[in-house]
């Protein structure tokens, strides 16, 4: 036990504003204590994330696909056995004797009933095993129809440290009172910048390897895909989200799931920051193999604005940026300069121009 500590003020504050200031001071000291504990190593990085993940092991919502089926089946198997050896320990002197007497006296009856219950339970368990085997066979068959996975290095990953949109993303979620999720947070560059800006941010990324630098910096990160993570986040638990990276590769059904999750996991008034490559920029930056095999395609900023608007988000005008492949006009001295520049304008508008965009939206309902 630690010793008593004095509060920040010696006498009880008298009016309401003083009381609020006093509590603000206490909260600031508590935050400082947490930072001190983290810095001292008392709270290893990732410890809190490990607690969350451990709880998910006990929760039906934390298990996915085959793991969930097999885990549930193991629970059925485990509870199919009924123990008739009732405990006879007792705090009272004669209690144990009476309990043993009852157990002995009723043993033949309990045996008869329990044998039938166990037989029934095992039959049910066996039936579930058959069903699960069939489901797994079906899943294996469906797997063969999936799009092939792309090599990881085929996906261009922008560096958030130098990205044109990082400052705007930080500004959009600065001051958000609840937690902010950074999807596909990678090595934690953007996440670290958000935390430095006073945002209570954490990150997810499906790759353990990519996350190592973030873990080494003591950032709160979890090894999970964005959709899998959002599924287990409580409703209206997030004050903000920054989505980038794999967002542009989502299959149509995954995009629908993501949109559904966005609208339930963000608080009303919460901020969504969405960064993506334009379809044109994407087509120009990846190889023909990736273009042909990619399961999904990036959307235009206007499409995201439409999808989010239809789900109750107020969407600010998208901001374009990134590599600008705009063709420059030819000089007036060139032959047919006017005609050529008009053609260049058309090309710039249809095919070239900025390759990325940033959408900031606020959940209104």
């Amino acid at each position, binding site marked *: *036990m*630690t*010793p*008593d*500590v*004095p*509060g920040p*003020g*010696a006498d*009880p*504050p008298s009016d*309401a504003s003083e*009381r*609020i200031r*006093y*509590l603000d001071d*206490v*909260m600031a*000291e*508590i*935050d400082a*204590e*947490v930072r001190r*504990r*983290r810095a001292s190593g*008392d*709270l290893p990085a990732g*410890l*809190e994330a490990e*607690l*969350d993940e*451990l*709880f998910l*092991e*006990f*929760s*039906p*919502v934390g298990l996915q696909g085959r793991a969930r089926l097999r885990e549930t089946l193991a629970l059925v198997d485990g509870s199919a056995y009924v123990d008739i050896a009732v405990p006879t320990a007792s705090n009272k002197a004669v209690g144990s004797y009476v309990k043993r007497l009852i157990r002995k006296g009723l043993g033949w009856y309990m045996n008869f009933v329990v044998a039938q219950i166990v037989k029934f339970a095992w039959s049910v368990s066996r039936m579930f095993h058959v069903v699960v085997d069939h489901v797994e066979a079906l899943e294996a068959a469906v797997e063969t129809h999936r799009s092939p996975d792309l090599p990881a290095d085929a996906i261009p990953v922008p560096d958030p440290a130098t990205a044109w949109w990082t400052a705007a993303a930080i500004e959009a979620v600065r001051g958000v*009172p*609840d*937690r902010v999720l950074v999807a596909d947070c990678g090595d934690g560059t953007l996440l670290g910048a958000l935390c430095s800006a006073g945002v*209570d941010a954490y990150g997810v990324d499906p790759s353990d390897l990519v996350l190592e630098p973030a873990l080494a910096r003591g950032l709160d990160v979890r090894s999970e895909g964005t959709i899998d993570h959002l*599924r287990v986040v*409580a*409703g*209206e*638990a997030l004050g903000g989200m920054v989505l980038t990276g794999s967002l542009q590769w989502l299959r149509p059904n995954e995009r629908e799931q993501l949109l559904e999750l966005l609208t*339930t*996991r963000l608080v009303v008034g919460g901020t969504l920051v969405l960064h993506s490559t334009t379809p044109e920029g994407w087509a120009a930056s990846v190889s023909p193999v990736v273009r042909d095999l990619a399961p999904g395609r990036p959307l235009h900023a206007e499409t995201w604005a439409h999808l989010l608007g239809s789900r109750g988000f107020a969407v600010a005008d998208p901001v374009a940026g990134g590599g600008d492949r705009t063709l420059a006009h030819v000089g007036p001295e060139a032959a047919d300069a006017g005609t050529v520049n008009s053609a260049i304008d058309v090309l710039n508008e249809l095919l070239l121009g900025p390759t990325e965009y940033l959408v900031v939206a606020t959940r209104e*309902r």
Partner: protein
Amino acid sequence: MTAVHQFVPALLPRDATGDHTVALRDALRSEGWESDIYVEAAHEELRDEAAYFEAYPGRARPGDVLLYQLGTSSPVAEFLLGREEPLVLDYHNVTPESYYVGWETHTSDKVALARRQVAALAPRAVLGIADSAFNARELADLGCPATEVVPILVDLDPDGAQVDQAERHRLAAQHGDATVLLFVGRLSPNKCHERLVGALWTYRRLYDPDARLHLVGPSVTPVYAAAVLAFAAELGLADAVQHRAGLTAGELAAWYEDADVFVCLSRHEGFCIPLLESMQAGTPIVAFDAGAVGETLGDAGLLLRSDRPATVAAAVDRVHRDRVLASRLVAAGHRRLEDFTAASTRRRFVEVLGRVADRTRVVA
């Protein structure tokens, strides 16, 4: 004569909505108004206090105002949608279904239905009465034309509840000097008991290795309750986390009084009566700012912006060690309770419902 009749899905004893409904009926009758209770189901103890809701049409009179105690799904909602009388909603909030998805299908279906019923009733009502501004905003968002915030009627004795001293001594003997964290509320995913367990684990690691977590409340979502207790066992906290349900009022008062800190990490609360009970017991409060928790608590507790275990543990430690802070929070709690006295809440109900009844008479 003014007549305000209440409708409630279930009238149960020792239940917040049930107690509120009966107390409000008594308050309205004491004003000389007619006021009866109509239910879908009533507990045996309260059977004589209420009539089946479908009996109302035979007793309806011009000028009646109907008041619906809304906190769950019920055929009563469909019945009221078909009535012509002015309808007032007394909204106690419905937990969003997202909290139950994956845990309990029937509960998530039930709350989804309740939310659909709220959405259908809100525009039809002449007034929405809400326990909190948080609940009032929900009603307004669903199209309720007017809302008033009036807290739930809770009869809290300012001198404290009668404590079961035998239970108090039993608890004290059980845990000795260990710090005791307490939360009171049904074991349901929106209450985030797993976060309390995580906070206890962190608190034991950093501050007091013998600390305990006492959880009081029914296991209304058994799968979730089992997961929380299994999680605690996995962390080696099986003996440190104690769960009880069905306590008498005196026993509950003993559990409050026995605790060092009341900790609430709920993600969704429409009002949170246990905060008031904790203030009454003089147990300092640490709570995560979600739903209506902040407005119910006021400055009578430490309101956390984060529910991460390290922050919760540090806040509990501070409240537990800093006696000046603890006594200020307790004093603020007693002041805060004055905003929720049964007498003032009764007056507000009579005033608000009186205005609706007056308008109804003018129109009639």
